[in-house]
């Protein structure tokens, strides 16, 4: 596995410049929202838009503490709880989906059923329609079962949404492995459990990280189901964000931008942590040999 290190700057200045311009265009909205988070209300709405301004942290403070309109005293908002909800729900459901998906993927890869491909196809069909189509039956199911508004309800739903993706992606990583290594481990006295945890999983850690991050990004930003199926206690940040829009004083862009900026941090952090694994994960088969 002698992987060649990429030569820095090999592509030359021309390509680097083009890539930078495209990169800047794509990143600009993110950059602008972060900038807005540090602006006062006047600066945020200024025409023409201001690039140079005096930064303020007021917006970040008012994410968590806001002056009451009626009494004028400072009051804690529930945003801390919503951030906790987002993190808890997203990580738990993506983690669960990854566990279930990995086990299923191993079975699909190593112990194929009669009509294996049909089962895999059926698993994927659950993601073929737009989610909004199933929202009424799901909403009714949640109402009847009492899952609506609970943590487990929404976690359960997100897990179900992430499983097909996990199964398919992780199966492709298992398929890439040389099954002889597993057989060798069996010959050398390993139990089936040891073969799976000791030999298969370590070889696809990169793939698992990639699957985890992709699932996390999708779940983290999910809005529609969160809006309908979470309650006051279990509300996630995207829903809370939407609720700051409108109101009697109009849209507080500074506040919204501050929430978005904070919202970016956890996912940014996770992706950054797993970055090296990620690059290996998505290019698994191509660099392995």
């Amino acid at each position, binding site marked *: *596995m*002698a992987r060649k290190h990429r030569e820095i700057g090999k592509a030359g200045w021309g390509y680097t410049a083009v890539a930078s311009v495209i990169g800047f265009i794509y990143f600009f909205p993110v950059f602008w929202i972060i900038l807005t988070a540090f602006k006062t209300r006047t600066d945020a709405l200024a025409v023409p838009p201001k690039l140079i301004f005096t930064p303020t942290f007021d917006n970040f403070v008012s994410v968590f503490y806001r002056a009451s309109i009626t009494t004028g005293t400072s009051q804690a908002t529930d945003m801390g709880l919503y951030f906790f909800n987002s993190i808890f729900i997203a990580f738990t459901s993506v983690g669960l989906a990854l566990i279930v998906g990995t086990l299923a993927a191993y079975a699909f890869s190593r112990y194929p059923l009669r009509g294996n491909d049909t089962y895999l196809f059926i698993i994927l069909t659950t993601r073929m329609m737009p989610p909004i189509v199933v929202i009424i039956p799901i909403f009714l199911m949640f109402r009847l079962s009492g899952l609506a508004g609970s943590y487990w309800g929404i976690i359960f739903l997100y897990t179900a949404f992430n499983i097909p993706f996990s199964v398919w992606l992780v199966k492709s990583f298992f398929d890439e492995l*040389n099954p*002889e*290594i597993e*057989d*060798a*481990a*069996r*010959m*050398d*006295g*390993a*139990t089936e459990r040891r073969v799976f945890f000791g*030999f298969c999983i*370590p*070889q696809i850690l990169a793939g698992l990280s990639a699957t985890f991050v992709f699932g996390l990004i999708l779940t983290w930003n999910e809005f529609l189901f969160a809006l309908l199926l979470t309650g006051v206690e279990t509300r996630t940040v995207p829903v809370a964000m939407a609720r700051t829009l409108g109101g009697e004083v109009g849209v507080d862009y500074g506040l919204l931008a501050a929430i978005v900026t904070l919202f970016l941090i956890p996912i940014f952090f996770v992706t950054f942590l797993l970055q090296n694994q990620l690059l290996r994960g998505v290019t698994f088969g191509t660099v392995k040999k």
Partner: protein
Amino acid sequence: MTIELKKLTKRFGTLTAVDAIDLNVGDGEVLCLLGPSGCGKTTTLRMVAGLEFATEGDVLLAGKRVNDLAPRDRNVAMSFQFYALYPSLTVAENLAYPLYAEKLSAAEISKRVAQVSKTLQLDGILKRTPGQLAEGEKQRVAVGRSIIRDPKCFLFDEPLSRLDVQLREEMRGEIKEVLQDLSRPTVIVTHDQLEALTMADRIAVMRDGRIEQVDTPHNVFQRPSNLFVAGFIGTPQMNLVPATLKGSDGAGIAEFAFDGGQALKIQVDPAVSQLSPGAKVTLGIRPRNLEICQDPVEDSLSTKIDMVEPMGAETLAHMNDGYRDLRVVTDWRVPLAEGDHVHLRFPPGVTHIFTEDEQVLRSAT
């Protein structure tokens, strides 16, 4: 200790990969399963290992039926075609891995690792990971990992197929030496007949899930029991010529007629007298047994040189008389020119006769 296979069968759906084979491997014996791709030899090996379940029949190790035992409970060592070294472990850890399962002490483990690495000259590379090894080194580590334990038997799946010619020759010798010291029943799967002929005590030639012949390398080569073995073993391939028996004298002198009108009177196995005149047979003769002569004799066929391939010390000539191809190998000094007419002599006692059911006709010895 022995390996016994009794009516061993493996079916994958409607496909019968291994068809009721019987086989015994004695203590210290090296048996090669030889056959073309897809003949069921690897499946047979995997059933002995426990990596595949037998559909029917039994696998007996040291006299005990092990059909239902998991691989780890069979105490069998196996080395794989693609080496199957554990990628994240170093060479030393790879070697030691089978010993952990046996719950040996750390001191005993390092002693054995040292021993094996000395036998196979792995001392310099013990700290490397498999990714940093050359093909030949990987092969040696794979062999080392299988011999480090004291198993009931050894299984090798295509051990040399991934090495280049020179390394292959070297490793063939090394493995043979190692196996001799181990004196355990050993099964080697290979599609390379040279590997089988040089390493095995006995060879089992397989085709389509059945064993065609089990015998010593010498006998498989000299006394093939049917057309398939005759054609499969030996390079260049044995000449197989359809003919019709005209008559025989009971002492093995027989006369054959060929398509195109030529006839031949040669000395063959006396069993030929069992056939009645007019019987269709196939004559088999090795390219190295045919002799080129300038004048026709009663045990020669006349033909024309079609193509000449120098092979160094020898020359391979392809002959064609318009009805059949014959391959002849001669000393390189014999002058051969394409287009020349020559006569090919069938010397006494080297021609095999195969009857219409493809079995050899040979009197018991």
